[in-house]
């Protein structure tokens, strides 16, 4: 409510600048896009190095780094003709990629990236129930995927969409359960307050089991290898987006990296203490916000490397094995984490809530 209120009420100049910065640059529109571009480049280059290849080579500044390769790919995709298959449900087919990108980028709006010196947080929209909102946004994704897969009227798309739906729906349970233990520990649904609860000790140390469950659950949610079963190209060509071309395909690709951005931000918030870290002298002089953002981005980068690494070293698991693991390992572990959290309350309470 706070953000929109002063849109209606009229703004003074610094507030207006701040809003523009937030919405357009960080963490709004430009940041996920930039994140996507950098991560796509890094993923290609890094995986190539693991495979003893060079990776993208020619495009961009600095000799043979291929820095601008993702942008070149993006331009190429935009130029391409949009092909809608025969018998496809035109409206849903065309709507789905936009929805996917939108939903993926929405969750970024509720993540606090740094505290502001005078109180409040550097985020687009503050609400005390941001964790619930993000969980709600996550539930929308399977339906968009099913819609896209069904509307394409292709067998591969249908199988891919059904796999994606199964996987996403079944991993929401352990994910939500693990987040429950975080809520128990921090006593709030507010992401910013969760970060603040970790000022003395990070939750990754207090809840290692929860961290693993959430990491795997989040990787499953955004379908990264070894859990990229919906996109398994050896079986279903490219899964539910098989039929998409051109700009729509670019949107879906970008939405995947928006998801990655959101997921790494969330795990940073939940377990790695968000912006907390020693103040960087140079950045701190300009603004304490920058120092917070620096630590946040650093933690995100480490998580991103770990998640990307999965693609280089693990074969893909099978859908039934994944679902089995979700029910037999994921949910019990999450419940175990909740019980441990409850039983050890007397030890962690002084650490987290300051006694």
């Amino acid at each position, binding site marked *: 409510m706070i953000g929109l209120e002063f849109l209606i009420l009229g703004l003074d100049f610094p507030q207006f600048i701040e809003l523009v910065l937030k919405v357009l640059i960080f963490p709004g529109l430009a940041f996920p896009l930039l994140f996507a571009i950098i991560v796509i480049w890094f993923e290609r280059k890094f995986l190539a190095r693991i*495979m003893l290849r060079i990776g993208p080579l020619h495009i961009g500044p600095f000799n043979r780094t291929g820095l601008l390769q993702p942008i070149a790919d993006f331009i190429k995709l935009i130029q391409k003709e949009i092909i809608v298959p025969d018998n496809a449900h035109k409206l849903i087919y065309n709507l789905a990629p936009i929805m996917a990108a939108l939903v993926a980028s929405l969750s970024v709006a509720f993540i606090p990236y740094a505290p502001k010196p005078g109180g409040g947080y550097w985020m687009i929209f503050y609400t005390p129930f941001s964790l619930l909102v993000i969980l709600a946004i996550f539930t929308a994704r399977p339906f968009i995927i099913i819609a896209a897969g069904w509307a394409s009227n292709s067998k591969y798309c249908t199988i891919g969409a059904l796999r994606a739906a199964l996987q996403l729906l079944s991993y929401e349970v352990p994910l939500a359960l693990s987040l429950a233990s975080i809520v128990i520990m921090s006593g709030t649904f507010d992401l910013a307050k969760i970060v603040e609860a970790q000022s003395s000790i990070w939750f990754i140390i207090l809840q290692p089991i929860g961290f693993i469950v959430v990491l795997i659950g989040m990787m499953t949610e955004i379908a990264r290898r070894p859990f990229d079963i919906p996109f398994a190209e*050896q079986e279903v060509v490219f899964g539910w987006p098989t039929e998409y071309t051109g700009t729509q395909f670019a949107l879906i690709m970008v939405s995947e990296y928006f998801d990655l951005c959101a997921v790494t931000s969330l795990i940073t918030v939940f377990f790695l203490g968000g912006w907390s870290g020693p103040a960087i002298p140079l950045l701190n002089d300009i603004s304490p916000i920058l120092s917070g953002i620096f630590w946040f981005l650093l933690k995100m980068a480490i998580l991103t490397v770990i998640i990307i690494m999965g693609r280089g070293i693990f074969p893909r698991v099978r*859908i039934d094995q994944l679902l089995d693991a979700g029910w037999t390992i994921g949910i019990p572990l999450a419940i175990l984490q909740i019980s441990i959290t409850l039983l050890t309350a007397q030890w962690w309470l002084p650490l987290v809530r300051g006694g």
Partner: protein
Amino acid sequence: MSIMKLSIGPQHPISAHFRFLLDVDGDVVLKLEPDVGYTHRGIEKLAEKRTYLQNLPVIERVNSYCDSAGTMLGYLEVIEELMGLEVPERAKYLRVIAAELNRIASHLYAASLFSVATGLETMLMWPINDRELILDLLERLTGQRITYTYQTIGGVRFDMPDGFKEEALKRLDYLEKRTEDYYKMLLWNHTFHMRTKKVGILRPSDAIKLGVVGPNLRASGVKVDVRKDEPYEVYDRFDFSIPTGKNGDSYDRLEVRFKEVGQSINILRQALKDIPKGPIKKWVPPIVPKGEAYTRVEAARGEFGYHLIGDGSMKPYRLKISPPSFRNLIALPHLCQNIPLADVPIIYISLDLIPMDVDR
């Protein structure tokens, strides 16, 4: 009950030049019907129209991009049996060296394809890179990288170049050490175990009944190898063992191939050590006498059978090629019954079928 007909191939990331017609119920494959013939070149008919010598480059293209040296060996064997020809000693050793180097290259290729089927692209690149060492060696020896036309009727065409022996031994040592990395990355990878163990189990009795050959048969625990059963060229002089699997699943089929690479390295070391000096080629008349012969050789993918009928002219009257992939193909529909869809690529690649080999 809703059964969906799914067609995989001939343009699909995993299918190569095959087409599989699947009956899919949900995520379960009920039946698989292979549709082959996309690379049919009629090599058996072509062979009837060409002289024995002209057939050399044609025959090796039965299995060109993996194992042309092993393929060619069988053709030469059958001609030489019909002619009653004894090849010079040094030529025999050189033939074996080319064939075994090719076997290593082929198995490395198979391993890399296998890891792609499971979705691990890193292990696509590593064996392919190391295969380059072998291809480079073969290029030094024969002048080509995949289609060598190296062995010829009555011997081989080129002698070993200078320094080949030392270089080859050095590279084999490297390859042996490198295999450890493959084990760490792929064969001991827990996720890989999940995907391949107990997938596509081919029981020994079924394997024999269906006529499966080569590493696939050995992975089921049947100890059959033409190199031991009917030693051709100089294989009876080498000391090597036949690796066999226990369960006959996809994992065993890959592991047997890895172990065979080790045995090939073993054979190559002995061959390079024992190779005698002497001529490498014998002059042979272009005419093959009247008669009939059937020879078998153990190529990388299994047993190649060549049935040749000569009519006393320069061209064969009939040349029947019985390639290993064609004989292994029948195991694919046999194994793909009531399995998850995700296992189809793994079973298919684990059988190491090559479309060219099936179609001829």
